[in-house]
């Protein structure tokens, strides 16, 4: 089936098998390997991207379902080579170790802060419920999100 998807502002038209998952489409057809595959069972959040304004787990979405939509991946949030404030905060606060969960964490955080620009620590933890990190113990991730919130507010 032929689909048209706008990814990070660029329109793509491709022929895809209906069972192709969005995450494979992004990584393999478009070469956007910033988005990761962790669990492949909708639980870890490594594959989170934005689709038409809301975050989705791209391992639990068919590429054909994305036909006509606008997608933003981790590759698309910096502007003119300048890191997004959430990326900056993850760097600054050491919100990662191996980095495998980071793209998903950042995409989820971007939406979280859009919905709630001044979250409490509890709200941050609640908001990151669908993103699993095997390295950091989450402390620095939470710090990074709170720092990003502060930076975006000022």
């Amino acid at each position: 089936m032929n689909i048209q998807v706008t990814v990070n502002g660029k329109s793509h038209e491709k022929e895809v098998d209906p069972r192709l998952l969005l995450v494979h489409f992004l990584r393999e057809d478009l070469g956007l390997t910033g988005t990761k595959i962790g669990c492949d069972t909708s639980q870890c959040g490594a594959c989170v991207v934005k689709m038409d304004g809301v975050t989705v787990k791209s391992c639990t979405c068919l590429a054909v379902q994305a036909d006509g939509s606008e997608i933003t991946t981790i590759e698309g949030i910096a502007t003119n080579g300048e890191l997004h404030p959430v990326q900056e905060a993850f760097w600054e606060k050491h919100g990662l170790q191996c980095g495998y969960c980071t793209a998903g964490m950042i995409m989820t955080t971007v939406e979280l802060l859009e919905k709630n620009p001044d979250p409490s620590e509890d709200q941050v933890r609640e908001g990151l419920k669908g993103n699993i990190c095997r390295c950091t113990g989450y402390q620095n991730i939470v710090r990074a999100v709170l720092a990003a919130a502060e930076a975006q507010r000022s």
Partner: protein
Amino acid sequence: MFATEFEYKKASSISEAIQLLSSNEGAKILAGGHSLLPMMKLRLARPTMVIDIGGIEEMRGISVENGTLRIGALTTHAQIADSHVVQEAAGILWETAYGIGDPQVRNRGTIGGNVSHADPASDLPTVLTVVDAKFTIQGQGGITRRGSRTVSAGDFFVGPFTTVLAENEVLTAIEIPVLAENQKAEYAKMAHPATSFAVVGAGVVLTVDNNNVCTAARVAVGGLTPTPTRGPSVEAALVGKELTDENIAAATALIDGDLGSDILGDIFASAEYRRAMAAIELKHAIFHATGLAHH
């Protein structure tokens, strides 16, 4: 993981979806995909055709009219959790929607898909049963075939992953009576730590007078039984009683007798354990509903 091969169709109207379902054996509807796609990836489901209803606008939306809250089947958990209309009309549903899965599951998963899937561990079947929701179902018209019908939540669920929906029927909307000022409703669950699915969930709707006496009660539990289970013994014991700690504890303990013998157990929680937790979750729900405990 890849699903088995299937043909993909996008339906642009309810009638087109029904038409496609009727003329293709082995076809399945795809709403938010957060139950169906995982099943297909594990090859537990192998539809020959997937009918994507995600673009049918007439199946979305939230409104209140004549004391009834109406929610389109395609409305996502996130849209319900973000809706002040739902918060005002049926706070129990609003809060339950927020407790489903995680933000991404809520962004994709729909109320219609949740109940049609009829997973015993889902939250919405229990909540919609306790608030006495009505499900609008559309099938093929004509004299011998079913057209549109309405089924109450209490009759909709037949067994695990089984509902009254015929193969060519679509659930289009869910209607819930707006809760009155003197009705207190709450859902409490013991959530599975990884997914938030209900190990045991309990919902209550209590009508309470000015003297804190319960004048009407509906209670239901889920997660541990094949379908949501009402608690008639608990309801009878609550009515006419003041809602004190002691009276609530005594009434909720009676749920055990209402559960029947078919209790689900798995590697996470045995049937025996779930049975023991039913009264506890029910008590939590009533405590929260009556303000005896806070979240």
